């Protein structure tokens, strides 16, 4: 599309490891194409740093098409940058202007310690899933798939919750570093579906307990998580989890 190259100033958080103090470093890029993705701009920066004998910026990324959930940059005060419903890798430089200064930081949460620069450790999410984010069915136990009829609306709602990519933007956006949107998406998916009903009480209690143990903050319904979620997971999932949890606490044996 032959658009003009832009000058971009980057203020990037640099931190050698989890124990070190970090600080912002400023870099200037002179030839940024508006068609580049945000991560491709970081590739260019790193290439420049390596050729100049510097240390490249460490950042997490993998699929670069918005589905793996690995990329995780906090850009100008917002997770995944200024646009709605996309991940960092789907953000293109045409969303910025020539001469812009862009501040890039890692997710910040007690439960997501920085590994290096912009990479953080999100294993807390795995531990939450391990505590109950599943249907306990061993391989080979299944009945014919069409013997479980699920109304389309229910299936669609469960799917909408299941689209969570576990990137952690919800935690990063939330002023309380709460993981409620992430946990509620999984709780919702499995409590909506008949397959997940058998374990619904144990599941929600175990997952919330694990979430609390990991040190995430608690939800104050600011809605920032859902607004910044690249998959636009709805706040109604959190309401559903609240219901499920209270119900489980009041009725389970």
């Amino acid at each position: 599309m032959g658009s003009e190259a832009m000058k971009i100033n980057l203020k990037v958080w640099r931190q050698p490891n989890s124990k070190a103090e970090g600080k912002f470093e400023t870099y200037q890029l002179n030839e940024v194409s508006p068609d580049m993705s945000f991560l491709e701009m970081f590739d260019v920066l790193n290439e420049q740093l390596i050729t100049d004998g510097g240390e490249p910026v460490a950042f997490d990324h993998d699929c670069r098409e918005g589905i793996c959930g690995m990329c995780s940059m906090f850009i100008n005060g917002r997770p995944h940058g200024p646009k709605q419903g996309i991940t960092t890798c789907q953000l293109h430089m045409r969303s910025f202007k020539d001469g812009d200064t862009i501040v890039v930081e890692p997710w910040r949460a007690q439960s997501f310690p920085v590994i290096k620069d912009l990479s953080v450790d999100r294993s807390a999410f795995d531990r939450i899933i391990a505590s109950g984010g599943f249907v306990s069915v061993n391989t080979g136990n299944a009945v014919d798939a069409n013997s479980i009829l699920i109304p389309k609306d229910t299936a669609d709602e469960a799917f909408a919750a299941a689209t969570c990519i576990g990137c952690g933007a919800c935690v990063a956006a939330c002023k309380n570093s709460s993981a409620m949107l992430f946990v509620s998406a999984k709780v919702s998916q499995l409590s909506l579906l008949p397959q997940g009903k058998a374990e619904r009480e144990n599941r929600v209690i175990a997952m919330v307990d694990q979430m609390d143990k990991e040190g995430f903050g608690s939800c104050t319904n600011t809605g920032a998580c859902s607004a910044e979620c690249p998959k636009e997971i709805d706040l109604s999932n959190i309401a559903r989890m609240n219901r499920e949890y209270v119900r489980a606490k009041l009725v389970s044996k």
Partner: protein
Amino acid sequence: MKVLQFLFTSSIGRKVLMALTGLFLILFLVIHLMGNLQLLKHDEGYAFNKYAWFMTSNPLIKTVSYLLYATILLHAFKGLYLVFANRKARGAKSYGSYNGNANSHWTSRNMGILGTLILAFIIGHMSDFWWEYKFGDIPWTKYETSITDESTMVTDITSENHGVHIRMGVAGDKEVFITKDLYKETVEAFEEGWLVALYLLAMAAIAFHLWHGFSSAFQTLGMNHPRWNPLINGLGKAFSILVPLGFAIIPLYVYLLK
């Protein structure tokens, strides 16, 4: 009570507790406002003082009021605890740049500050009026209402020189009501410009606190339904404007008419 333990130990439990106490306080605001609106009556405080007397003497109301005090404390201190716990969850470093306005309303991010303002206000408010009314030395007023023509005669008195025991009763063809005059106390207080300003500020804080808090309580209790959300949100917004406005009119009215 083990069944309710989760209200104090888990993250969701705590927020459910915040929601329940919050809704109770919202209910209280309605009752309180209905009483306060009597201040606007031109009856030299008769109705308002009667209401005040009722609120402090009825045993059932008294019980509820203790529940209310407990609720205020629980809501306030649990809230403050959450603010600090949540701040800790951010970790040692906070963001260099954080654009909260892009994704949430500022009231929702400042419930702690708004709540603290409100708490400070409540303390001041209670010591100004509640404490004064209960234990303070404030003027007394005697209302003598004629049963036949319903005209009321108002006399200032002092408690000492009358040693009144029965504060309400019928003497001859008159209904006699002797009371600490909270009405006068209030009206006199609201003639002070700075106090009125403080009250207005506090009402604004309540309005903003409710702007988020009202619908948030419903979300916390699991009530989020596409069909009901507009109603809950609309009600919440209306409530958060109208109720504090109702409270705010009183000092303004008194101050402007002095």
